[in-house]
């Protein structure tokens, strides 16, 4: 549940909150690409450190920690799967642990980059960003609605969970396969509610003449300011360095002999 906390906008007046949403989206995307192209623990840790600095300056560290706490089971699964698949290929524990740690931290980088974007950007700003990126309004609306309904769904999930626990369902008990099976009584009512809600929303939008006018105008326009451009340039430079390191084969795991032991080619 707390995993969803990181997708919920919290008002704030920090520098990060006031950044142009397009810059924030570009930053998150660049962090994501850098993390995808590198399987290098040093670079992943560096990205995580940069993200932590931005999170601290945005003063959303408590919510970020909640999100990370909620994602820990997922991180544990990634860790276990990576360790065993690596170990089955090459039965060296240190290598298995090295890769498992890298992949787990990489997942945290992904989560943090998007958590940061959603925590500091209002749904309206997200809609404007997508609109100015020429995404058709229907898709923008669908995406923004999905974000808006995330906390509602989190609440519904809690209600369904309570209802099934009141019927003797113990979601956290038993072996892994049983726990997975135990999710069915929770997910089915939730899915039914989501489908019903989407129909209701569609009807409500049609009643309000959604799509009647092809030409949409916005009251607010996004304008890049000097600080936005400065921030974007810094991020672009860091991104270029990250890509160059990959293209030139200068990753720390390849250049530092100590790390090379843990991460053979």
């Amino acid at each position: 549940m707390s995993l969803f906390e990181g997708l919920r906008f919290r008002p704030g007046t920090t520098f990060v909150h006031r950044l142009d949403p397009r810059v924030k989206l570009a930053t998150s995307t660049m962090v994501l690409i850098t993390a995808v192209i590198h399987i290098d623990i040093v670079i992943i840790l560096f990205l995580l450190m940069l993200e932590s600095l931005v999170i601290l300056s945005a003063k959303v560290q408590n919510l970020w920690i909640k999100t990370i706490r909620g994602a820990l089971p997922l991180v544990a699964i990634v860790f276990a799967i990576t360790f065993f698949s690596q170990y089955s290929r090459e039965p060296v524990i240190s290598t298995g642990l090295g890769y498992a740690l890298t992949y787990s931290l990489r997942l945290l980088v992904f989560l943090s980059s998007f958590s940061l974007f959603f925590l500091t950007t209002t749904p309206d700003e997200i809609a404007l960003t997508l609109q100015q990126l020429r995404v058709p309004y229907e898709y923008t609306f669908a995406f923004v609605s999905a974000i808006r309904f995330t906390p509602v769904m989190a609440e519904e999930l809690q209600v369904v969970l309570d209802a099934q626990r009141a019927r003797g369902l113990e979601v956290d008990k038993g072996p892994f396969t049983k726990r997975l099976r135990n999710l069915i009584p929770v997910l089915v009512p939730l899915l039914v509610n989501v489908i019903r809600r989407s129909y209701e929303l569609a009807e409500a939008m049609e009643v309000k003449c959604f799509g009647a006018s092809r030409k949409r105008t916005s009251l607010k326009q996004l304008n890049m300011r000097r600080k936005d451009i400065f921030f974007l340039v810094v991020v672009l430079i860091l991104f270029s360095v990250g890509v160059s390191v990959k293209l030139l084969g200068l990753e720390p795991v390849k250049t530092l002999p100590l790390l090379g032991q843990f991460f053979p080619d």
Partner: protein
Amino acid sequence: MSAIFESVHYIYPSKVHALRGVSLEFRPGELVALMGENGSGKTTLLKHINGLLKPVKGRVIVEGIDTRTASVAQLSQVAGLVFQNAEEMFFESNVFDEVAFALRNFGYSEEVVRKRVEWALKFFELDTYSSQSPFLLSGGEKKRLAMAIILAWSPRIICLDEPTIGQDSLQKEKMKHMIKMLNTQGRTVLLATHDVEFVAELRPRVILLSKGEVVADGKCEEILTDETLVKKASILMPQLVYAFKRLEDLGFDSRVLDVDDGVRQVLKVLRHESV
């Protein structure tokens, strides 16, 4: 005692102080209505009985068990909670399996499961829908199915959260009849509701809640006819009470909760006048 609340406080993670020092006792076989405006703490109170919520201060004892030391599954066996929105618990492909789900969780044998499910479906007049999808039932039937699900394992305490919401008058009548039957069987029945007319006909013990505190606790006749108390809990008195309050000058008693009471009052005054 069925359940005892000792100075219970509960604060939601959103910092809403939902219960503020609630102390109550529910006796075995009692029929109790918890009433109050939205957010007064009715549902929060019910969720403490089967351990879905644990007090942040104070304690709740249910059938001798301190809820802080027991799991929801353990407590649910003695205290069943029927949720406001029945559909929030449905997931099986047919009504029979929906009722059997909890019984299987509690470890009953298949033979016992079959017998109990059949009995519960019959009790709630749902036996003809046994193989039908629960999602295809009408609103009233869904509510009755939610009650059958809980009643199947015969908990000694039954908590109903807003049992009449979204129900037409015929379904309400059936619901009233079933609640009375459950109570007659010696079960403690707790209702959280705004529906004053429904409560007036059931004549339970009434507990008024406001902002997480108990503002009144007593007989239905005394509480639902007291304008000051009812206002405090932001609910309305039954319509007949308003009507008879206007006729007080003519010698009518305004503590009239249902049609039978009203007729008795009118006949009494008419007879008195004819003498």
